[in-house]
């Protein structure tokens, strides 16, 4: 088609294009391609008529027009594909993937509401903003308690804050589980990690019992172990964060630990392997947690920041404070246990 400089009405152009191209399309032998070309032509003409029936446009070669149109379609779809590739990447410095958390959160919401029927109280003790250190008792072989604590604050707290739990190396570096936990915002417990998160004004949860807490035998349930070596007190003083004690009751019943096998653990590359009536005898199925009734209770904040950095040098004071925090959490746990009638029905 010859190109004309003079603008013509779009409608005229459309009919002209249709007439001229009909002949060209008829000449196409392959029926598939012909059908495609006809469809494209119809779409293009429709678009042209819809866009500006009365507007004057410069007549362009039909082939040019169609190829331009196809190119613009292609580039648009490429752009969309490009956006798809990059959108949804909201991964923070610790590898917490918000989009992924939103995808898997319904599972934990189900566990929270229907499976363990968690009852949360004292949520008003969690500040709406600013750095805060939640100190909780630890239980379970897998960090269900950390996930339920997350869920509790996200569901019940008016500010729907994300809790950033820190868990012991045992679980954080486990294959498959480690990357999953990292994606849902659980980080390896480390003094530097904790400090960095708190300095970012995050809500951090720690389980100072560490591995001793998760392999606690069933008969010693809810008797809190030693709280590490006072790292939590130093952390709170150094970052000037309020400490909120948290009792998580119900977690100690999901895996009744009857013993541990450091020897089997060694084979699997773990410091120890807890044994329950079901695990590891039933393999992975033995890791299905039992449906106990859970309670999560937040206690009033403890202000350690007022002590000032000088207190850091006084190891005896640090140790005493550490013990004090531990007894606060322990008291809270006993308080809940006294109130509940059954571990399974609540």
């Amino acid at each position, binding site marked *: 088609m010859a190109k004309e400089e003079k603008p013509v009405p779009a409608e005229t152009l459309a009919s002209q294009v249709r007439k001229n191209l009909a002949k060209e399309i008829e000449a196409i032998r392959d029926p598939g391609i012909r059908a495609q070309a006809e469809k494209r032509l119809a779409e293009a003409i429709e678009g042209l008529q819809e866009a500006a029936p009365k507007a004057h446009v410069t007549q362009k070669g039909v082939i040019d027009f169609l190829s331009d149109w196809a190119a613009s379609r292609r580039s648009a779809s490429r752009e969309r594909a490009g956006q798809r*590739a*990059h959108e949804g*990447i909201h*991964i923070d*410095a*610790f*590898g917490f*993937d918000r989009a992924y958390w939103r995808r898997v959160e319904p599972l934990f919401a189900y566990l929270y509401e229907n499976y363990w029927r968690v009852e949360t109280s004292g949520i008003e003790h969690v500040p709406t903003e600013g750095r805060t250190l939640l100190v909780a008792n630890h239980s379970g072989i897998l960090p269900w308690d950390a996930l339920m604590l997350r869920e509790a604050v996200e569901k019940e707290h008016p500010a729907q804050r994300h809790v950033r739990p820190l868990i012991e*190396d045992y679980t954080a*570096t486990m*294959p*498959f589980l*480690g*990357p999953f936990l*990292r*994606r849902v915002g659980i*980080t*390896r417990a*480390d*003094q*530097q*990690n904790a400090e*960095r998160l708190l300095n970012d004004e995050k809500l951090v949860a720690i389980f100072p019992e560490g591995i001793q807490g998760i392999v606690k035998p069933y008969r010693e349930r809810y008797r809190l172990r030693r709280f590490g070596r006072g790292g939590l007190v130093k952390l709170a003083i150094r970052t000037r964060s309020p400490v909120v004690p948290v009792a998580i009751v119900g977690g100690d019943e999901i895996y009744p630990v009857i013993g541990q096998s450091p020897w089997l653990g060694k084979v699997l590359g773990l410091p120890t392997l807890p044994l329950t009536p079901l695990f590891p005898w039933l393999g992975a199925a033995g890791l299905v947690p039992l449906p106990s009734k859970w309670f999560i209770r937040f206690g009033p904040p403890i202000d350690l920041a007022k002590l000032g950095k000088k207190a850091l040098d006084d190891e005896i004071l640090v140790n005493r404070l550490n013990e004090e925090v531990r007894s606060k959490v322990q008291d809270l746990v006993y308080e809940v246990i006294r109130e509940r009638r059954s571990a399974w029905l609540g």
Partner: protein
Amino acid sequence: MESEVPAKPDSGPRKKKKSASNGTLPALAITGASGFLGSLVLSRLRGEERFEKIVVLDLEKPSLPIRKTKFYKVDLTDPACDARLAEIFQKEGVRQVLHLSFFGSPRRDAGYAHEVEVIGTLHLLHACAQHKVEKLATVTSTLAYGARPDNPNFLTEESPLRASKRFSHLQNKVEAEGLIASFAEKHPETHVTVLRRCMTLGPKTDTYITRFFSRPVVPMILGYDPLLQFVHEDDVLDALSRVIQSNTPAGVYNIVGEGLLPLSTLLRIGGKWRVGQPGFVLNSVVGALWLAGAGEIPPEFLDYLRYLCIADGEKAREKLDYRPRHSTKDTWLSFTGEARVRSLR
């Protein structure tokens, strides 16, 4: 000085074009100038007129003709080279040394690599001590921190260098850094700056890391998905030129790109095929290929696909005023785009 090879006249060391402006920088000596980073630095300094002189020290003459350069053939593994280096520094009035004779990729002849990187550094430090050089800058790698399960998420400059003892490529850097650190302590009059760059990508960078990630298929270790960070070669050069051209505080700095992404996400947005393999399979395959001379990844590198080794770039941001222009994601995306173009060619 019989082995001295004077630069060609066209490279113009004899040009009487002494810039009288007070922005003149003292003579700079570069070791390893024809290496991967050295040649990048030289091409960056091509338009830089402020240096009084650039003394290029290497085994081979760099192909790039640059004004005001003077080339000396120096073998850092030569036991007598420290005296010779001191002599050259004396003669050329060198006041700044940029030490870049480190290998970008692991070498099969680990003994030679050790001689060049560790013993070579030792010789250079002897010469620097003798001549009382004002400034010494070098570039090593954050991978020397080592990928360990018990690493904090962000390694600061104070973290110990714990690269695997068997990964000799990085172990040499650890040893060289140890020598440089004790030199800095003993000679407070010399301004010592060490830049630790993380995995560097870019169109001109060609190391085992770029080759590993430019393949269409990248292995992942089943059950592991570490966070990774990258820095663009231009940003490393920016940081380096900042150090050699201005008065930046001495010390060790991590030079990293902003942000980090998990390996799986990187491979997804880079359009790579992920192949998950159990760790022991990958270890033995990669180890066998490396021993056979067919692979270029030593098996110890697989730790970096398993555990965290992320450096914190805050100190460089604060003290060097270093602002990377490319984030980890941008660096990676431009790299994978380029890799695709390269493979089409």
